[in-house]
Structures are given as C-alpha cells and as structure tokens.
C-alpha cells in the first residue's frame, strides 16, 4: 500500500511531518514501512500558461506556432509539436532557462525560421507519467502564471506499507488515517459524500443467484457522462499510489478503492444485454474475454456477473471486455459489491489474476461499505466526467453483517501483558480505535465495526491494547524455565558431524527431490515412493529414498568446477510410504547419513578403501563394532561394496558407485560412498569403561596365510584375533594374489601382550599356535608352514 502524505492530509491533521516519526508510527502500528520515497519536482521554471493563438508553421507541417500567456504580460511565442489542444487550453509551460527531468535545458531558439521561447510540456517530459501522445491540458480554472508545481501536491512523501493479511481495512487512505489517529490520539475525517442526484430508476435489474459467493450488490447509474482524461489532481494521486491512470471512469473506481478500500467496477450500462444482471457460478465450458485482452476459461468455482448474453465480468477480479466503458459510453452502471473472500482467493489464483481489487476482496472488505463506496464513486464520476447521478441506488443484501460484540476481562489483558494494564487504560486504548467501548466493572464490552473482521475474541483485543500501548513500552524479562540440554541422540549426532569434519569431509545440504531415474538408481523399494502432487519441476517430483543421487550431482558439479577432490557428507531424511495406522499416518522418514568422495583426497584417488576407512574411523569414535560383508546392493559397485552390520543387522553400505550409475550421473571418476541409517549409530553407542593399560612389554610377529578363494579377509582377521585373549592387535600388511597360481595370500602382523606379566617364549608359541589353528579352521594355511 503506497501512502502519499499529501493525499493523507485530506483525512487527518497530523501532529508531525517528520518522516522518521511517521515511519516509526507506521512500523509500531504493525504496518511496516518497506520504503520511503521523497517526491519533488524534478524541474525548474515550469508555469501554468494559457494558449492564446494556434497557427500553422509557414515552413513545417508537423509543428504549430502558438502564443501563450504565462501571466507576465507579453505572450510567449512557442512552437509545439502536439496537436491535442487548441487556443484557450491551459497548459504547463517550461520557460526559457528551465531545466526538465534528465537535465534537459529549455531555451529560446528558431525552428525553421520561426522563434520559439520555451516549451509546452507533456506528462512524460515532466516525468509525471508515460503519456507522450500530447501535451498536458490542465483544468480551465487553473491560475495562469502560477508555478505548475502547485498543481501537483509536491513535495510529497510516499510511504510503502506492508499491510498484513488480517487488516483489509488499512488498504485504504481512510484506513491508514484511522490507524494514525489511534496512534497519535487524534481525530480523522471521512471524505464528505454529497450526492446531487436526478430522479430516475436504473434501467438494469439485478439478482443474486449465488448468495454463497456474493453477500451484497449495489449499483447506481450515472447518465450522460463523457469518457476522457481524469483531472491532474486525480491522476497525480493515483500515480503516487502506484495506479496507472486510464480514463476518468476507470480512474474514479481506482481512486475510491485507494481512498475507502472498496473496489468498484464501471459497466457501460447500454451494453448490458436485456438490461438484466445476475450473479451466479460459472458453468463449465463458459469463457469470458476480460479487460486485459485474454480469454478466460471459467469453472463452476468461478463467480461471474452475467447478462442475457452470458458472463460479462469475473466477479471481484476483473471486468469483461464486452461491457467495458469506452469513448462511446454515455451511461455508466457503477457497481460496488461484497464478495465471499474465499471464492475470490481461489478464483484469482486459478485464473492467475491478482489485481488490487482481488487482493482487497480476498482479505475481506467491510461488507457494509459498498453503498458508501458506490455513492463516493458516483459523486466523483459526475465531477470529473460530467453526467447526472440517478437517485435510486440498487442495494441487494444477500447476507447481512452486524457489528460483533466481544467481552474482554481485564484479567485476560493482565495475564498476557502485565498488571499495568488497568481496565481504564485498556478501555482508553481501544476507544482510540473507534471501537464501541463500554466498561462494566472489570470487563470491557467492545462493539467491533464490520471493517475489523480480525477482532472476534478477547485475545484479538489484547493484541490491540498491546499494539496501541506501543511494544517499546514493554519490559524485557526472562521466564524461569527448567534446565535445558541435548538428549543423547542429539549429542551423538553432533559427535558424528564433527568427526566427519575432522576426517576432511564437508557437510552438504540438498533438496530432497529426485527424478524417477535418480530414485531408481539406488532404491530397492521404488514401489514405496512418495510423490509431490505439485512439484516445482515435473522431473523432480519424487521424494528421495537415498541421499546419494543429490550427492552425486554435487560431486559432478564440483569436479566440473575444477575441484581436485570432492569429500562430502550429508545428514537428512529419506521418505518411504508405509501402511496406514493410527501411529503411522505420515510416511516413514528416517534420517540417513551419506558420504561421497571422489577424486584426489590426501594424495590418493578416493575409492572403496577410503569409504571403508571413514566408516572404521567413525565407528571407532562412536565405540561401535561394525562388521562388514561383501554385498551387491542396487546402485553400488558389485565387487567393491560392503554391507555394514551392527549387532548382526545391516545398517547400510560402504563402497563405490556402480559404473552404470556413474554413467547416468556423467561422472568419470570412481566415487566412494557410504550410506547408513542414523538412528542405529546413535542407539548403538554406550558409555565406555576404562580398560587397564598393561605396563608389560609386547611381542609382535607376522603370519602369512594362503587363503582359499571365497574366504573374506575380515573373517580371517577376526577369527584369528578371537583365538587368543592376549592379542592386542592384528593388522593386515600384505594381501596379494600369486599371478600364476591365483593363490591369494594374506599377511598379518599380530601383537600380543599380557596385562600382568612379560610373556615367555613358550607362552608366545602357544598363542601363535592358537592363531594358526583358528586360521586353519577357515581353510587358511600358514605359508611355508
């Protein structure tokens, strides 16, 4: 809502013109100031002149020679290229020496042998509008010789206010004045509406067949008007309000909308077929040519105004071309109606047509404002376009609205706002809002006018009291709550992310939308996909079942940007449909942890070993024993991927992405990945107890085994490690396949240590034999043994 300070002064005598003070008032009333524009004349030496003579130029066809009285005695001879005026026109004249917007200097010069002193100005030359079809023609009564700026309410300040959805009443100059009056504790004025009418009934008869969409319909005829340009003052006010001037009939409806907040529509009364208008729901298959030049297909949820020939206006949103006011129009039917806000909201969204009118109606205009708005529009139309206003106003009320009464106990105010809010103080504040206030002991009975649909409950009035008390006057206190803190899972999640950071991984955040193809790349449960009904992009309509597709996109983009290596991780939800039950009304949406690494990391190319190594480090940090088994899950490399198992249950995978999937994602490097469920990582953690640290020496020895094909190295390590209670460590240091025989050998370095003694030779031999026996049980034989 753009509010011109000069226009506003018609309705209120403000105690200050100070921009900062007014801005604060708006802000603290809850109508946040989004911008402040200072408007000043962007020119010098432009005066009001009267054209005395207009003659042809002896040597040029496209311009004429005029003489103009600018109130200084001798008329000025000015050559002018515009043709939209004749002798007698009152016009703005830039005198020699004037400087117009853009630094355009005006002087005296000869045009094809005829002297020209100054310039007659158009709107666009003065930066007042985009009309450059001709010069501005001012009202005849404008004082000749006066400064043209005096006609423009300049300088001015325009405040652009953000009006919240619950306050349709403030989307008007009068509403803004009412708010400021409450803030400053002063009076405001409604515009004076004095309608001079002539006897007569409208030729149109009106019915409301859709009372669920239209609460009230008023109409009045203005006969014998003449379409033309609105006067400068109206065009200027509309311009400052951000509304384009079109014609006097349309400008009047917009002006009243800006002034009172009620949108109107002007029909050419003579185009209404059979002189009947009805408000009804549109029928399937109907369409309507609207004023913006488009043909709109209508649905039974669109409300239309129809005449005998069908729809002629899209109710509350936009008029139809067929009944548009044109140059040929003489009789106007001025409509002001109250529409069901919900209907307007859905219809305007469906038609993708949001207008100043629909914005107001969908927030709910005062249902009792229509007759006044209609009168005001007819008054102004007769004033700016001529014509006679017919005496009889049609006013059909389908649904009536009365002021509501709300009781506000002082205890409720004090409970929320504090004890300083006595009954008297609250009552005084509410009275400033022009609410009907009656105090009954400790209760305030408030009669709420119909322009405040937001005030229906005590809590709503508490807000008004707080607002007018000025939020700045409230103290800042702290409640005394219980102790706060993170739960174990939240703490561990932080441990996980900081551990991964320590391992050189960067946390990513991705949108959870994927394509069908991306979904299918990793998902074994595609049937359980959850889809977005109204996706941003049709090819990204599925909710992810894996974090990997998006991470792969990130990998590709980072590699393409020249990153030598890409180490990423993400924690986020995946989504699976699940059978409905009272406890499972929403999709299953567990949190996952995923890692993707590609390219050169720490000097080596990321591969499955990197993924496995990260898992081991993380498991170590969390104190978890994660077992691994070679598996071939969908999307993963079939021979370089492990299932990660905690307490015998798979919690995810670590390895590499399948080359076919890499091809889909257009990545030409190996990508090491991990994806695990988060909750078992958190739940599996338990508090550590210290193990004694032995002070006795260790013994290291190596064993090299020939292993049968199919034996997992991890199983060999684990089985041998379990064979001796004195084993402190076991680490594979060589793993090779003999090129000719194909025999695989694994060499392991073992470390033994006893907690309470130095091991002697025979003990070491005994333990070593246990390891060898455990390996033999798996079919692994000691090399050379």
């Amino acid at each position, binding site marked *: 809502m753009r509010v011109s300070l000069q226009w506003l002064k018609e309705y209120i005598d403000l105690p200050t013109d100070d921009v900062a003070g007014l801005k604060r008032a708006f802000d*603290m009333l*809850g109508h*946040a100031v989004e911008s402040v524009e200072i408007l000043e004349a962007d020119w010098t030496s432009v005066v009001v002149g009267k054209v005395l003579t207009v003659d042809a130029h002896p040597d040029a066809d496209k311009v004429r020679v005029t003489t103009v009285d600018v109130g200084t005695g001798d008329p000025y001879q000015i050559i002018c290229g515009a043709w939209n005026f004749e002798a007698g026109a009152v016009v703005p004249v830039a005198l020699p020496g004037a400087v117009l917007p853009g630094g355009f200097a005006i002087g005296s010069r000869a045009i094809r042998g005829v002297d020209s002193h100054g310039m007659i100005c158009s709107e666009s030359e003065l930066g007042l509008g985009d009309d450059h079809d001709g010069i501005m023609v001012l009202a005849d009564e404008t004082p000749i010789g006066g400064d043209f700026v005096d006609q423009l309410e300049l300088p001015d300040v325009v405040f652009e206010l953000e009006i919240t959805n619950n*306050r349709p009443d403030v989307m008007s100059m009068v509403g803004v004045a009412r708010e400021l009056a409450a803030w400053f504790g002063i009076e405001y004025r409604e515009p004076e509406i004095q309608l001079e009418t002539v006897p007569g009934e409208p030729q149109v008869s009106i019915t409301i067949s859709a009372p669920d969409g239209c609460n009230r319909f008023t109409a009045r005829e203005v006969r014998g008007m003449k379409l033309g340009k609105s006067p400068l003052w109206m065009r200027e006010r509309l311009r400052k309000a951000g509304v384009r001037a079109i014609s006097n009939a349309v400008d009047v409806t917009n002006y009243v909308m800006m002034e009172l907040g009620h949108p109107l529509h002007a029909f050419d009364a003579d185009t209404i077929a059979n002189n009947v208008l009805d408000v009804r729901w549109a029928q399937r298959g109907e369409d309507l040519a609207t004023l913006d030049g488009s043909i709109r297909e209508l649905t039974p949820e669109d409300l239309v105004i129809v005449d005998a020939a069908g729809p002629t206006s899209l109710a509350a949103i936009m008029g139809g071309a067929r009944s548009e006011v044109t140059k040929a129009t003489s009789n106007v039917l001025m409509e002001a109606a109250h529409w069901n806000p*919900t209907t307007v*909201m*859905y219809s305007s*969204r469906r038609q993708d047509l949001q207008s100043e009118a629909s914005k107001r109606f*969908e927030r709910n205009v005062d249902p009792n404002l229509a007759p006044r708005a209609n009168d005001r529009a007819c008054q102004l139309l007769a004033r700016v376009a001529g014509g006679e206003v017919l005496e009889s106003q049609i006013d059909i009320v389908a649904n009536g609205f009365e002021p509501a009464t709300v009781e506000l106990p002082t205890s409720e105010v004090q*409970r*929320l706002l*504090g004890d300083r809010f006595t009954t008297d103080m609250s009552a005084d504040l509410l009275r400033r809002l022009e609410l009907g206030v009656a105090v009954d002991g400790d209760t305030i009975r408030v009669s709420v006018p119909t322009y405040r649909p937001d005030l229906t*409950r005590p809590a*709503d009035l*508490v*807000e008004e009291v*707080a607002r007018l008390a000025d*939020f*700045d006057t*409230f*103290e*800042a*206190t702290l*409640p*005394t*709550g*219980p*102790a*706060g803190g*993170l*739960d174990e899972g*939240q703490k561990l999640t*932080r441990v996980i*992310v900081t551990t991964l*950071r320590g*391992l*050189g*991984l*960067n*946390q*990513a*955040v991705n*949108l959870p939308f994927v394509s069908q193809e991306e979904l299918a790349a990793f998902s074994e449960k595609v049937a359980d996909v*959850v889809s*977005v*009904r109204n996706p*941003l992009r049709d090819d990204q309509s599925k*909710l992810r079942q894996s974090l990997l597709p998006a991470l792969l996109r990130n990998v590709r983009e*980072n590699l393409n*940007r020249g*990153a030598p290596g*890409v180490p990423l991780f993400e924690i*986020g939800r995946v989504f699976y449909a699940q059978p*409905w039950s009272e406890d499972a*009304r*929403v*999709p299953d*949406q567990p949190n996952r942890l995923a890692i993707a690494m590609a390219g050169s*990391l*720490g000097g080596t190319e990321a591969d499955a070993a990197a993924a496995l190594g990260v898992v081991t480090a993380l498991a170590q940090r969390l104190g978890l024993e994660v077992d691994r088994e070679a598996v071939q899950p969908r999307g993963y490399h079939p021979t370089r991927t492990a299932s990660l198992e905690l307490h015998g249950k798979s919690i995810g995978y670590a390895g590499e992405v399948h080359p076919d999937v890499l091809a889909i994602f257009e990545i030409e490097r190996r990508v090491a990945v991990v994806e695990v469920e988060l909750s078992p990582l958190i739940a599996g953690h338990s508090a550590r107890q210290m193990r004694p640290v032995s002070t006795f020496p260790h013994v290291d020895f190596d064993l090299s085994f020939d292993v049968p094909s199919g034996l997992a190295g991890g199983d060999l390590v684990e089985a041998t490690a379990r064979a001796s209670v004195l084993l402190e460590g076991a680490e594979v240091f060589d793993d090779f396949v003999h090129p000719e025989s194909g025999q695989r050998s694994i060499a392991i370095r073992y470390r033994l240590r006893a907690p309470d003694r130095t091991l002697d030779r025979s003990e070491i031999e005994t333990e070593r034999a246990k390891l060898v026996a455990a390996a033999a049980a798996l079919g692994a034989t000691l090399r050379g043994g």
Partner: protein
Amino acid sequence: MTEEQEESIDLDAKLDEMLLNMRLPDPSELQARIDAIATSDDLGEFHKDHLGRGSVIAKELKNLGKLPDEQRKEAGRRIHAVRQDLQRRIDARQEAISIQEKAGQIAAEGIDVTLDSRHYSIGSLHLIQQVIDEVSDIFIGLGYKVADGPEAELAWYNFDALNTPKDHPGRLESDTMYLDYGDPADEMLLRAHTSPVQARYMEAHEPPVYIVVPGKCYRNDTVDASHLPVFYQIEGLAVDSGIQFSDLKGTLAEFARQFLGPRTEVRLRPHYFPFTEPSAEMDATCPSCEGANTSCRVCGGSGWLELLGCGMVDPNVFDAVGYNPADVTGFAFGAGVERLAMVRYGIEDMRHFVDNDLRFLAQFPG
C-alpha cells in the same frame, strides 16, 4: 751441585735415554695434524693410529712390564701423561668437529617452511548446521530442549492445529507442496514451517514446555537469490503458567545479544501470524553498521535487521493440542536459519546454501 744431585742427574740421564728409546710421540707436535682433521671419522682413524691397539703408545705400554721396577713407574707415568695429553687434544678436536657436524647436518636438513609439502585437510560443517547448533546452544542455556518432527506432515498439524483459517492463502498449492499420500481427506504435505512440531510436542508433553525446533521446511518457491523451496527454520516455544509478553521480549533480546553481539538491541513490531496473538516481528540493531551507515549492505541503511517472527501463543492453538488456555500462556518465535546466516556472514545469495560448492563450504569450517 751436591753428590746426591749428581747421582740423581746420572739416574735421570739413564732414564732419559731409556725413555728416548720408547719413541713416544710428542702430542704438541701432533696438534697441527689434529687441527687439520675435519670429520669425526678421520679423527676416529687418528685416534686409532695413535692411541688404538696397534699404536706406539699401546706398544710401549705393553713393554712396560719388561722394565725394571724403578724405571717402570716413571715410564708408566710418562706414557700416561702423553696418552692423556693426546686424548685431551683429540677430545677437544672432537668437540669442535661435533659442533660443526651438527650445524652442518641441521643446515643440510633445512626445508622451505613457506611451502606446504604435506596436506592434512579439515572438512566443514554446513553453515546451516552451524547456525542451528549455535542458536540451539543459546536456548539450551536459557533452559530449552531441542525437539524434532516429521517433514512429510499432516495438513492438520501444519495448518489446522495452528489456527490457520481454512481459506488461508498459505494452504494453496501455489504456496505449499502437497504429497500424493494416504487418505485424501487426511491431507499430507511437506511442512511449510517447523511449527507443526509445536503442536506435536504439546500433544505429547504436559507443560511447562521450553523447546527449540530446528528443521527443514518447504514452500512452492522457485530457486533464486532470495528464495529456496527448501529452507530451514528454527522455532522456539515456551509454555508455562505466568508467561507474559515481556518474557518474549526479554528472551529474544537475550538471544540477539548472544547471537549478534552484546551491544545488540531489539524491538518488536506488531505483525500478523495465525498462530500467535499478539504477533510481532523482531528487529535487531544492525551488527555491521550499528545504525551508522545509511548505505549499509547488511541492513539497507535502516540500522535495523528484521530477524524473526514471534508472538504469544494463540488460545486456539492450546485448544487444538489439549491444553487449557485458561491455565497456561506461552510465546513462540521462528527464524529463518538462512537469514541468520546471511546476516552473520554477509551472504547475499541464498543459492549458496544448496549449491554445495566446496569453494563456499570450505570457507566456513565451523
């Protein structure tokens, strides 16, 4: 000269003759050679030649036993004197050589410390995560717990439980993302804010409630510099007996001071949200210019930053979750995590938060 003296001279002469026959080296004559030795190894060789097993001194020591008693003592003294003298000279030289050699070694193993030749990489927490953790920690200090809830959510929790009118524009498909899921009457969506967690938490817990709720939210916005269809909020809720509007103000003031700096001031401006009444927006003084720069890029010159929305919990919300609005009051607030990060770190384009460009991520290790 006495007779005795003469006698002793005579003895001395004999001894001298004998000692001359020992062919002991003169250490002072060797000093020049010692000084010319440059390395520990060469000095070791020299030591071996002159004091080692095959040296003259070693031979003479061996011969000592063959000497008569009265001569052996003196000869032994002389040999030891020469040996000690020589050893001292060698030791002194060794000390000098060692110092030189150590210096040489240290000089030789020097590196160019201005270059990195080995790389350890530290990763990063996403800025979103950092801000969530930091804000959570501030409120934990004020007595809050951290709560969580589903992102694919029932429309009832996202709207109805929060007093959102049936015809609120936020419910339109142009604003909210809906899911094809379950019973059409039990409409399912991607939550538009973290507030549904308020309702779920209150349903499951008796007051008092002091929680913050960080999480992902969804809106039907196309991606541009100031919009993301997926964004993060952090929401707070305090419900207790006796909570007043001033508590909201004080709590947010404390938060702002901790998050933006101790000199930060806040103001509440009336606003409208369906789930709070009164509702407000909170502005904080600009930490960048503190109101002193009319062309400040962070606050746009106003000196104030719009930071979050807040208000006193609407009684209809208490009704919806089974609390008695007569027994409790409360306040709620919600901030955009990206907004907080942008203010704090001077980020002007929201797309950085989802681009996952390492050049951005690595700037903020967290």
